C-alpha cells in the first residue's frame, strides 16, 4: 500500500493548476458559441478526450491524470467541455465498435465539439428495462427508417448527432433484436422538445422521431449487436470524475460550515450547537470515505484493472451519498436551504451542485434526486452487484427468452 501521488502526477497537477489559473474564462459563458470556444480551448490544451487513444486524437492519458485534470477543473469550478456525452460515450463506442469510415468521419469533430452529440437510449416505457425499447429501425433497402420516442436525452436541444438504440428485429428475444446507430438530429422527422425537470431547468429533452433516416453506413457493429455495445460503453466510466466529485462535495461542505457560522440559535452560531456538530461530523466522515473509495478505484485503474462491476458499487455509493448530504444540509439550514431568491446577501448561502451547475442549496437538493435514477437506478445497480459481484441467483424472468 502506498497512497501517495507519484512525482509525475504531482507535477501534472501543478501544471494543470497553473493552466486553469491562467486560462479560466473571465465571464460566465452564456451562448453555445462561447461554450464551444471554451471547449476548443480545453481541447487545444489537451484536457478533452485525454483518455482516448492517441491514434484517434486523444492523449493516452492515465486514469490518474484524467482524474487529476477533472479534479483541478472542479477546484476552480471551470465550465465543463461542451460535448461531454460525445467524449465520454459516443467516441469510445465508435473507436471500439465502429468502422474505419465512421472513425474518420466522426471522431475528430467530437473532440473539437464541431459536432455535438446526444444519446438516444431511454424511452417513456423503457427506463430500467431499457431492452424493452420500442423505437423501430426498419430496413428500407438503401437506408433504415426510424420511428419512435426517446426521453431523458441530455444535451438533446443542441445535438447535431445521436447515438441511437432501436429495434431491428421484433421476432427474437428483446436483448437480441436491438441495433446501434449514428443518426443525424438535423433532419425532418427528428423533433426535440425541452423536458422541464423538478429543478425548473431543462438539462434533458424529449425526442420524437418520425420516419427519420439512418444511413446503412452508420450502423455500429452488427445488426442485433446493439444491446451488447450499449453494455460495454455504459461501463466506459473510467473513474475520471472520481476525485472531482469529492472535491465538489468538500467545497459544498465548507459552504455548509460557513452558513452554520452565520445562522444563529440560542444566541450562538449553529456551528456551536452539538446537534448540528453531530450531523456535520457524520456527513463529513461519509464524505471522506467517498474520497478513500475514489483513491481505491484509481489504484485499480492504475494497475490496469478495469473498474468492471465495481463501478456499480461506486455509482450506488456516491449517488446515495449525494442525497443524504443534501438532505442533511437542508435539515441544518431549514428554509434558508430552500430559498431560491429574495434573501438579503448576507443570508444567501451559495453552493455548487454535484452537476457543476446551480448556485443554491435548493437546486443542489433537487438535483441530487437525479443521480440515483440516471445511468441505471440504484435498484438496477443493486441487481448488478447481487448477480455479477456476489453471484446470487438471477430472478426468474419470463422476458429473457420470449420475443
Amino acid at each position: 500500500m502506498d497512497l501517495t501521488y507519484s512525482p509525475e502526477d504531482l507535477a501534472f497537477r501543478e501544471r494543470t493548476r497553473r493552466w486553469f489559473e491562467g486560462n479560466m474564462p473571465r465571464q460566465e459563458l452564456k451562448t453555445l458559441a462561447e461554450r464551444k470556444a471554451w471547449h476548443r480551448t480545453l481541447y487545444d490544451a489537451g484536457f478533452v478526450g485525454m483518455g482516448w487513444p492517441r491514434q484517434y486524437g486523444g492523449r493516452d492519458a492515465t486514469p490518474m491524470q484524467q482524474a487529476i485534470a477533472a479534479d483541478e477543473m472542479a477546484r476552480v469550478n471551470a465550465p465543463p467541455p461542451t460535448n461531454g456525452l460525445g467524449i465520454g460515450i459516443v467516441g469510445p463506442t465508435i473507436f471500439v465498435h465502429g468502422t474505419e469510415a465512421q472513425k474518420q468521419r466522426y471522431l475528430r469533430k467530437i473532440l473539437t465539439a464541431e459536432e455535438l452529440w446526444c444519446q438516444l437510449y431511454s424511452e417513456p416505457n423503457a427506463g430500467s428495462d431499457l431492452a424493452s425499447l420500442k423505437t423501430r429501425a426498419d430496413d428500407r433497402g438503401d437506408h433504415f427508417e426510424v420511428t419512435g420516442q426517446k426521453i431523458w436525452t441530455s444535451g438533446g436541444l443542441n445535438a447535431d448527432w445521436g447515438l441511437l438504440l432501436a429495434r431491428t428485429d421484433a421476432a427474437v428475444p428483446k436483448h437480441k433484436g436491438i441495433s446501434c446507430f449514428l443518426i443525424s438530429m438535423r433532419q425532418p422527422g427528428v423533433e426535440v422538445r425541452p423536458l422541464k425537470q423538478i429543478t425548473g431547468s431543462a438539462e434533458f429533452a424529449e425526442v420524437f422521431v418520425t420516419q427519420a433516416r439512418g444511413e446503412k453506413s452508420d450502423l455500429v457493429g452488427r445488426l442485433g449487436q446493439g444491446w451488447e455495445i450499449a453494455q460495454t460503453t455504459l461501463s466506459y466510466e473510467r473513474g475520471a470524475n472520481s476525485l472531482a466529485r469529492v472535491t465538489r462535495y468538500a467545497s459544498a461542505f465548507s459552504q455548509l460550515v460557513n452558513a452554520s457560522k452565520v445562522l444563529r440559535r440560542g444566541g450562538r452560531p449553529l456551528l456551536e450547537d452539538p446537534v448540528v456538530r453531530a450531523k456535520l461530523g457524520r456527513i463529513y466522515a461519509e464524505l471522506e470515505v467517498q474520497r478513500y473509495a475514489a483513491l481505491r478505484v484509481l489504484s485499480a485503474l492504475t494497475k490496469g484493472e478495469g473498474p468492471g462491476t465495481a463501478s456499480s458499487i461506486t455509482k450506488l455509493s456516491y449517488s446515495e451519498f449525494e442525497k443524504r448530504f443534501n438532505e442533511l444540509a437542508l435539515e441544518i439550514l431549514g428554509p434558508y436551504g430552500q430559498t431560491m431568491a429574495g434573501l438579503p446577501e448576507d443570508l444567501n448561502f451559495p453552493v455548487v451542485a454535484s452537476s457543476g451547475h446551480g448556485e443554491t442549496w435548493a437546486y443542489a437538493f433537487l438535483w441530487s434526486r437525479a443521480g440515483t435514477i440516471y445511468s441505471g437506478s440504484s435498484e438496477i445497480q443493486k441487481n448488478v452487484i447481487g448477480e455479477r459481484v456476489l453471484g446470487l441467483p438471477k430472478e426468474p424472468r419470463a422476458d429473457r427468452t420470449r420475443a
Partner: protein
Amino acid sequence: MDFTFDQDQQLLRNAARAFLDEHCTPTAVRALWDDSRGESEAMWKDMTQLGWLGLSLPEVFGGSGLGMVETAIVLEEMGRAAYSGSYFPTVLVATSLALGGSAEQQKRWLPAIATGSARGTVALLDAEWNWDPDAVTTRATKTAKGWTLTGAKRFVPWAHVADVVLVPARAPEGLTLFVVDSAAAGLTLTPVTGIDPGTRWSALALHGTPVAADAVLGTPGQARPILEMLLRRGAVGASAEMLGAARRALDMSVAYAKVREQFGQPIGSFQAIRHKCAEMLLEVENAHAATYYAAWALDAGAEDAPLAASVAKAYVGEAARKVCGEAIQVHGGIGFTWEYDLHLYFKRAKALEPMYGDADYHRELIVRHVTD
C-alpha cells in the same frame, strides 16, 4: 497510488487466515467463551511464533518493525474469526512503550511481550462515560518513593490476563500516564460481563496503589499526545476487527441466500434479499477503504492521519453493526439461534463499536479537524 496489499502483506493475510481458520474455529471460540480466562495459551504461543506479537515493534526488541497496516491485516482476520483474547490491547501497550517509553520500561516489557511471556492492556475509560483524555478523574499523588494512584477505571479490556496496565491519571503536573504492574498493591479487578463473551472487560479499582517514580510513561503532565495516539491506533485497530466481523457476516449471508429456498426458489433470487446483500457489500467495501486508508495514514505520518482515524471509527462502527444486523435478517430465524455462528460476529462488532472512542466522540473530533 496503490491501495492494494503488497506481496508481503498479502502473505501475512493469507497466513493469518489459514492459522485462524485452523485454530480459531467457531467451536474453539465457543469453548473459550466458557473458559474462565477466555483465551488459549496454545494459540498465544503459536501467535508469538508467527511473530504477531512483535509485528509493529522495532527489531531491536524482537519485533518485525512493520506498521499499522500489517496490524490491521491481522486484526481484520481476527474479527473474521471472532478471535477471543488479549492480542490487541497487548499490541497497544507495546506500541505505546515503543514510541514513548523509557529505555528501562522498554527493556522490562517489550522483549517479554514479543516473546509471549507478558500481556498488557490500557485503562482509558474513567468514571465519566467520556473518551476525552481530559475526562480522567483518577488521581496520582506524589509520595517519597514515587506515586500512589486512586480511582476507578471502567471497561478495561482483558485486564484479568494482563501483566501490565497503562493507567492515565491526574497528577499535580496534569494528565500523566503510568505503567502499572497488574500485581501492584491495592489494584483490584471485578469482571464485567458484556454481550460478547469473546471480549472480556473488568472494572479496575485503584486504592492508593503505589507505583515507582520511574513508572511514568513520558513526562508527568504531558500524557495527552500519547493518549491521543493510543486512541487513534485503538480506533483503527477496532475498525479492522469490526470490518473482519462484517465481511464474515456478509459471506455467510450470501452463501445462505444461494442455498436457502422459500417459495420454491433460492431467497437470493428475490430482490428484497439481493438488494440487502448489495447494500451490505457496499458498506463492507467502504469500511475497507476507510480502515486501510487510516492505517496507511498513521504509518506514513500523513497530515490527515488523526482525521482519517476518526473517520474510520465513526464510519466502520456503524457499517459493521448494520451489516452484521442485516446478516441476521437475511438468515431469518436460524440467525437468531445460539447454535448458529452468526451472533459471534454480530456481538464482536457491537462490543467494539463504543470502544476507543464511540461514533459521537469521533464525529466531534472530525468537526474540530475540519472547522478549526
